[in-house]
């Protein structure tokens, strides 16, 4: 992956910086208005989860490419990484409406729907890494 930039998230301001960095990168890669909003929103949800549940972590944003049938595909990859408590039951947190924080429970399932690729790895007591990609159409 070329040119990846990371934003530390341990305050609410980290959430704002992460989504601004995401919007800038999305513009740079050439995403349209709607996908910029999708990417920014996904980053906001992931950053908020770090802030709420792990206290500290980082969001990294970078450009990715892949050889496909129609040539080279470009995309934006978000990696959200923390060394927080981890998620015991991933199936539960991926269900719409599930929340332990009094939120809408739309965060992680929402991110999955906003992005094209979504992958979550979590070990109880060690932390969580979430990778999500949006491909440029």
């Amino acid at each position, binding site marked *: 992956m070329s040119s990846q930039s990371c934003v530390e998230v341990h305050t609410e301001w980290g959430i704002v910086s992460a*989504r*601004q960095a995401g919007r800038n990168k999305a513009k740079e890669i050439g995403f349209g208005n709607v996908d910029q909003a999708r990417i920014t929103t996904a980053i906001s949800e992931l950053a908020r989860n770090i802030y709420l549940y792990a206290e500290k972590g980082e969001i990294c944003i970078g450009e990715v490419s892949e050889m496909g049938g129609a040539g080279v595909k470009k995309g934006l990859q978000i990696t959200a990484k923390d060394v927080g408590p981890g998620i015991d039951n991933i199936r539960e947190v991926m269900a719409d409406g599930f929340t332990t924080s009094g939120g809408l429970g*739309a965060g992680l399932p929402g991110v999955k729907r906003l992005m094209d690729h979504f992958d979550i790895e979590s070990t109880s007591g060690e932390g969580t890494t979430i990778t999500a990609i949006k491909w440029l159409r």
Partner: protein
Amino acid sequence: MRVPILKLHNYLLISVQVELDDQTALQFQEDLLSKIHKEGSTGVVIDLTSVEMIDSFIAKVLGEVVEMSNLMGAKVVLTGIQPAVAITLIDMGIKLEEVPTALDLEQGLEKLQQELEG
């Protein structure tokens, strides 16, 4: 940072022009309710034309401020939600179903008038 709230007769007008971080959103909730109380406002228009992103937290705060204002006796209309924001909210599965909305400030004021008279 604070979101400015303008008074126009019995109404309050808000145009959100700042990047909404969590604290600003919560502060706005509190400011709006105190202003409704202080001014005895019957209607509120919150214009979101300049808002480029609404995530689940901000959606929750907006939904709540509408309910809270209703409890106090003031009607709220949200206006100017951008196409990209509407698409993102529905993608996320967030439905602000009981929240009155209108295309722009002008139609928002008309809607308020209708709601308050009808």
